[in-house]
């Protein structure tokens, strides 16, 4: 069932991105998502950007995300979750090297992951890709938790010019990460998956899909590619974990809500 939360704080991250801070916490692992319902409008999946208090980061791209941007402090929204399977940490975290690769709102779950990873003793590199300087999100937030951040922009207005894969290839070569974590647009995920397969690196990618039931019933969120035959983003994912990883559960439970 959905539970009502109230917006207690709104942070403007850039011209089309806001973080909504809510008035309660949620038991959630990085990579899990919630369904957000605005009665009379719609319901959509959003990554958990922070668990205590529950925080969502919303990029305004269409009707629903704009409706979320229109909320004021004190307004209500309804949450179902946390849902799905989040990211997992490798066994024996202290000293492990993690590379997090983010595009678009992908910074939201990865920033939550970075905090937990640093707490668990890992060293974290973050590659953030964006079109232009103003769309680079949360880079200070990553630095604040102690991660090294590598920015790329397509127009070169911040960091290195080019796609995020350029930075990824270099960090892979220079720092030899133990695992790669990714969240962002599907073309970015596909490019990342290709790099990881080539390099023989274990990887965990948060996949995007149109979600309807969010319960593993309706089939709407099936990811139709040959690596993920019959794979449902809402209950099998959203995080796709490459078999190669011998991972320990970070406790991301299958929640019924």
């Amino acid at each position: 069932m959905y539970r009502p939360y109230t917006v207690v704080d709104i942070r403007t991250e850039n011209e089309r991105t806001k973080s909504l801070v809510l008035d309660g916490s949620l038991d959630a692992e990085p990579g899990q998502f919630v369904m957000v319902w605005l009665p009379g409008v719609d319901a959509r999946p959003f990554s958990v950007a922070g668990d205590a208090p529950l925080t969502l980061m919303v990029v305004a791209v269409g009707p629903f995300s704009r409706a979320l941007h229109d909320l004021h402090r004190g307004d209500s929204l309804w949450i179902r979750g946390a849902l799905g399977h989040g990211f997992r940490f490798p066994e024996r975290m202290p000293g492990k090297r993690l590379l997090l690769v983010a595009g678009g709102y992908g910074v939201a779950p990865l920033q939550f992951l970075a905090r937990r990873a640093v707490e668990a003793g890992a060293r974290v590199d973050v590659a953030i890709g964006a079109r232009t300087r103003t769309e680079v999100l949360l880079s200070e937030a990553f630095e604040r938790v102690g991660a090294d951040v590598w920015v790329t922009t397509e127009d070169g207005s911040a960091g290195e010019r080019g796609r995020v894969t350029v930075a990824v290839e270099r960090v892979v070569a220079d720092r030899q990460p133990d695992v790669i974590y990714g969240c962002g647009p599907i073309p970015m995920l596909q490019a990342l998956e290709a790099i990881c397969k080539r390099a023989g690196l274990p990887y965990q990618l948060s996949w995007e899909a149109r979600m309807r039931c969010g319960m593993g019933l309706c089939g709407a969120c099936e990811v139709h590619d040959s690596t993920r035959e019959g794979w449902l983003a809402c209950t099998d994912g959203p995080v796709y974990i490459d078999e190669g990883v011998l991972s320990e559960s970070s406790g991301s439970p299958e929640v019924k809500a």
Partner: protein
Amino acid sequence: MPDLACELLNLRLRSPVVLASGILGTSAALLERAARAGAGAVTAKSCGPEPRPGHPNPVAVDWGHGVINAIGLSNPGAMEEATLLSDARVRLARLGVPLIASIFAGTVAEFAIVAQTIARASPAAIEVNISCPNVGDEFGTPFAATEESAAAVTAAVKRVVADIPIAVKLAPNVASIGRIASAVVAAGADMITAVNTMPGMVIDADAGQPVLANRVGGISGPALKPIALRCVAEIAQAVNVPIIGTGGVCTGRDAAEMIMAGATAVGVGTAVWYRGVEALGQIVGELDSFLRERGYRTLADIRGLALRPPAARLPGPGNS
């Protein structure tokens, strides 16, 4: 080891658990996944004459004692569905798992057209969904509501697909489901699937609004089980065709109850939410244990048991 094989008309199922329509039945890959998980047969998502996007979100929610959904019969239309089904049939054949197609339509004539289109994919059976509660007045009164309309659809479909067995899927919200069953069997139904979801509404008191965008939806899962058991029992006493007993089956014990009410096979849907796709195989395993512990050897030993007076002295599993 009890024998869980199950004869559904001419179909031989390795287990009596049938994936219910609308759950994971939207692609060949998902149908194959359900079969690999343990289903003895799988039913595809209902398809209609034209593509439909379905209703806006929320389309489903767990309300504490079951699920309510109003997906809105999203489907790619009969033409594209036939391609999907052909692909699925080939993949399932390798596993020995029959494919049941499912169709709906807004008029009797359209039902026949959809059936004909789908028949080209040669499914093992066609389920005729005359009972979806989520489409509403757009399609007029539900066909499952009266003996006349239910029989008319059945006869029309049977006329065009004489060589493929048909199961007619009935609704629980009727005064006498036994009479509807008799009418569709008289009109040519080879099997009955009972039941579809029960119409309901879940309201969020804080929002002061129904949770589903469609406002009303269909109730499935645990809350539906005793309703479904009663429907299956009534149908089993009214007609003499196989019944795919569906509604709230989440465990092997639930499946046993459904068969005791007179079902030949057992449809499973919402259990996939509670237990994952693995639910299908888990239910088969639990049913096997249930039978073994009580000394039953085949499904026939328990079929319709609850419709007859009890044995003079009851065997019991005890409490140990």
